[in-house]
């Protein structure tokens, strides 16, 4: 047996598993999506049907907002936590990363405890303003839940990247007259760009596809995963839910590819 064929033989199990559990269901999904009364046009429904299109837009906006706010919060917090030593630092990091293991359902539950009808925020606003502030069951509650979900993941990536920053570069920029802001803009942020792209992509994709939190908060929040769920279980509309699923994957992939090529030059230059 030649070396080459040995390598191929070793790859065989992987190929089988990939085919059985990834490619075949995927192919089936694609076929099902085109099997409705509209045929292939079913795929266009996600764009042409106003309700679907609005939901898609909603989802993309929610995921984008989640990604941007997560990156901002996680960068500021991660940079501070990595660069400063203070009492309670270890406990703070542990608390920030504690939600890592929580499924979406638990996150949704926590949002209800915070901003639901009996939530802390409602109680507080009732006492101060005489009005109960309740937003857990809306897209804002979902947004808060997604932040809660993605910040720990992104913070860890950013902290690791900050640790690897060469402080000599910052000192060199300062010696050339750069203000603290200019140092961030010209040295620190470009060096962190690869970490932003990687962790931002995960935050975005997670927010696009997450279901547990939305399901826990309410069944009538307009996001794609909820729509797929209702089409699938309530309307038993298999072909439309399959087409929407494929659409969700393709749109997420397209946006990430776009973001990557957009920041690609910056990342490549940052070496």
């Amino acid at each position, binding site marked *: 047996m030649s070396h080459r064929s040995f390598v191929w033989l070793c790859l065989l199990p992987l190929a089988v598993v990939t085919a059985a559990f990834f490619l075949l269901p995927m192919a089936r999904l694609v076929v099902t999506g085109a099997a409705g009364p509209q045929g292939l046009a079913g795929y266009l429904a996600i764009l042409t049907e106003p309700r679907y299109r609005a939901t898609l837009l909603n989802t993309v906006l929610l995921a984008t907002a989640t990604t941007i706010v997560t990156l901002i919060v996680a960068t500021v917090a991660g940079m501070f936590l990595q660069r400063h030593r203070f009492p309670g630092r270890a406990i703070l990091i542990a608390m920030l990363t504690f939600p890592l293991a929580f499924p979406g359902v638990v996150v949704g539950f926590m949002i209800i405890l915070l901003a639901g009808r009996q939530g802390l925020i409602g109680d507080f606003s009732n006492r101060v303003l005489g009005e109960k502030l309740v937003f857990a069951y809306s897209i804002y509650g979902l947004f808060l839940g997604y932040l809660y979900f993605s910040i720990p993941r992104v913070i860890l990536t950013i902290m690791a990247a900050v640790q690897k920053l060469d402080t000599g*570069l910052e*000192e*060199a920029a*300062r*010696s*050339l*007259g750069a203000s603290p802001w*200019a140092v961030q803009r010209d040295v620190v942020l470009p060096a962190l760009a690869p970490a932003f792209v990687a962790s931002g992509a995960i935050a975005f994709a997670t927010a696009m596809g997450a279901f547990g939190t939305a399901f826990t908060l309410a069944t009538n929040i307009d996001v794609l995963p909820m729509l797929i769920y209702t089409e699938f279980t309530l309307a038993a509309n298999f072909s439309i839910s399959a087409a929407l699923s494929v659409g969700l994957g393709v749109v997420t992939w397209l946006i990430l590819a776009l973001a990557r090529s957009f920041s690609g030059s*910056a990342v490549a*230059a940052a070496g």
Partner: protein
Amino acid sequence: MSAQAGHGASVRIETCGKTFADGTRALEPATLEIARGETLVLLGPSGCGKTTMLRIIAGLELPDAGGRVLFDDKDMTAVPIERRNVGMVFQSYALFPNMTVSDNIGYGLKIRGVPEKERAARVAELVALTNISGLEHRRIDQLSGGQRQRVALARAVAIRPGILLLDEPLTALDAALRDRLRGELNRLLRALGITTIYVTHDQSEAMELGDRVVVMQKGKIAQIGTPREIYFTPNSRFVAEFIGAANIVEAAIENGHLVLPGGRQPINGDANIPAAVAMIRPETIRVMAAESAPLSGIIDSVSFIGDRQRLVVSGVSNRSLAVDAPNTVRAKSGERIGLSISPDAVRLLPPES
């Protein structure tokens, strides 16, 4: 303004010590003055506090309470580095990886709001000066070590700093390149004529580049002087041994003579010291026939170096003596050899050092 700025600022460091947060005493309180346009070298073994001293002058470290840093007699102690107008070359070069060579060189000018056209002209000037034409649009990871060193220097000089600070700029390079760049750097620093503080652990670099050399040992200044002064008249055993090759001889002095096992060696003056320490440089010892020589010993080994040969001679003093002989002298190990040393070449050192 450029003619004035070309000579830079004078620097005074007053009782600047440094104790780090973890308790490390990196620098004992030191006072030092550097004249406008002078090149001062901080020389010493690794860990002796050279970088710490440089960073205090740069404004990257704050001296311990009581220390002051003055540029042109103005107190700069509390001024952060970004407003000190210093050009700094880091040991690792610290070039910006997300910028091209010319963007690196022009960065300080851009920060200062120098218009694009003027900036490009200044960058071109420095590219020519540091000999890196053709590399302007390269990324930093496409440069060799020697090229990076030049870019780092060009970037530091571009802003017309009052003081140029260099932290072991040649240490990261291989030996042959280091020697070549040393000469180049020397010409460049002389041409710029700007106040320069240069950190190195390499004594030949210090000798070639420095108007004055500060020899440091364990956070303290051991000696300050011109290269000649620290070479010919070291004031301690540490300086004598750190700068060049030195024979340290321990012997009694009687009526102006070192009493050695290999003979009596006259010195200047007529002191009587029961336990003296003296330094004799290998190249100041002359070899001659054993019979007529004031000192004699046995050759232990001969190393032919090319322009000279290094003999190790035992039996002359309390330990073997290194002797640099002309490359034409026939010397074999095991033979007896005569030595003569001028009294001027014997330098007495404080015994406790």
